[in-house]
């Protein structure tokens, strides 16, 4: 069961960085590829993740279960997928209202990426709660979790920038990321049903 949670954390990390890299490609047609466009994206992702950690920790106080863990993935997918349809009109709206591309890119990446990234940020602290059984092993488990989720981030970055953009359109990659999150949500839910009481203490 622990392996499944590590797998889910890995996928969470993968999706976060894949999405962040795609963010640069999504914004470039409206805000360019100046250094501050990347600055905006990284700011928004860091901010969202920090909030996600807080909220994920908070959520883990109330009857933590794999089932609920799976719901985090489904919600992230639901918030991520609209990018395929609404990124263009949102950016156009911001572009028309904000002349300075620094603040334009900051506001646009905020609108587009804050919500899905906050939810994705909840994965890490929630996984800690599901895995930790005693305080004495908590550090080791947190370390392993960071290992898997950050390894996922590294591979998500590599796969997206080296291969995905060469093989697929941006919207196809976003759809694949969404599908992966949904699949992980289902995996968590099935795991919960197989061992319904396995993770609650």
């Amino acid at each position, binding site marked *: 069961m622990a392996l499944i949670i590590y797998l889910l954390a890995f996928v969470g990390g993968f999706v976060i960085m894949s999405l962040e890299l795609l963010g640069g490609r999504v914004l470039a047609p409206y805000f360019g590829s100046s250094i501050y466009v990347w600055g905006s994206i990284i700011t928004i992702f860091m901010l969202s993740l920090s909030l996600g950690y807080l909220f994920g920790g908070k959520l883990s106080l109330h009857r933590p279960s794999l089932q609920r863990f799976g719901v985090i993935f489904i919600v992230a997918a639901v918030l991520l997928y609209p990018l395929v349809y609404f990124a263009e009109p949102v950016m156009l709206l911001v572009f028309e209202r904000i*002349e300075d591309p620094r603040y334009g890119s900051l506001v646009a990446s905020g609108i587009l990426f804050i919500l899905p990234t906050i939810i994705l940020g909840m994965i890490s602290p929630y996984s800690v709660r599901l895995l930790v059984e005693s305080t004495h092993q908590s550090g080791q488990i947190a370390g392993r979790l960071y290992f898997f989720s950050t390894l996922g981030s590294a591979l998500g970055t590599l796969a997206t920038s080296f291969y995905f953009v060469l093989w697929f359109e941006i919207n196809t990659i976003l759809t694949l990321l969404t599908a992966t999150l949904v699949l992980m949500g289902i995996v968590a839910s099935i795991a919960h049903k197989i061992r319904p009481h396995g993770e609650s203490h």
Partner: protein
Amino acid sequence: MSSTSCRRLPAALLIMTMVIVLSGTTQARIIHKERSLYSTILLDKQGSTICLQFSVRQDQRNQSCKDLKNPKKLVFGYARMMLTGLLLQPDPKSILIVGLGGGTLPTTLNEIYPEARIDVIEIDPAVVTVAETYFDFRSNDQIRTFVQDGRVFTKRAAMRGEEYDLIMLDAFNGDYIPEHLMTAEYLDETKAILTDDGVVVANTFAISRLYDHESATYQAVFGDFFNVTSRESANRIIITTGRPLPSIAQLEEVASTLAPRLRAYDVRIQDFRRQFSTEVDWDTNARPLTDQYAPANLLREE
């Protein structure tokens, strides 16, 4: 330069020998080197010629040169090739240049067409400073310089309803290609700020798979175009319009009137037929680049 030569002495010696044998001039001397936000800017001086380049790579193809003894002469081949775009628009009143380089294009066009309004877009403030310091580039009443991303400028220009008779795209310097400036959507936006008889002149890639994809992209947006290549340059210039292309006979007529004005710049425009082609010499199955699919840097390496 000297420390690099020490570490890679055999290669450096070979290159030096080649340079000396091929050009008969002295070794190039780096007189300015700067790491800016967007690239490495190198200035080298060879005899009386000063060149700007954006990469430390030896196969660097894109640069801007100036002969200090004869400042009007366009030393570098691709700048001369880009001016052949004037054949399709010999009397531009408004000109947009995306990518400043050493500023040779705006300076030359300002001299040839002192009445024309010229807007220059350059993303890197350090390039503007270098052009002003070493290439005597100056903004003036006619030349406006905007430190901005070309795509953002183009979108805003379209919103303001601005139009240009001549648009020169020269933004691909150095090792990194700005991928959002190679897509069909960007070319559509460029087309939207073109006057009815406006012309687009783009400095692009002559090698690698990118040649096919880029050709397919221009074909998709503009239809037919003139492909301008030359043995003396690794660049390929695309010249096109929003309308059907003129005939070679029409261009020859224009060439004879333009020739005297361009002679001082070493542009032998009456010889354009040797360089112009409308032959489809690319893989027509290549996928056009779009905002959704724009791996230009990866395609260049393949």
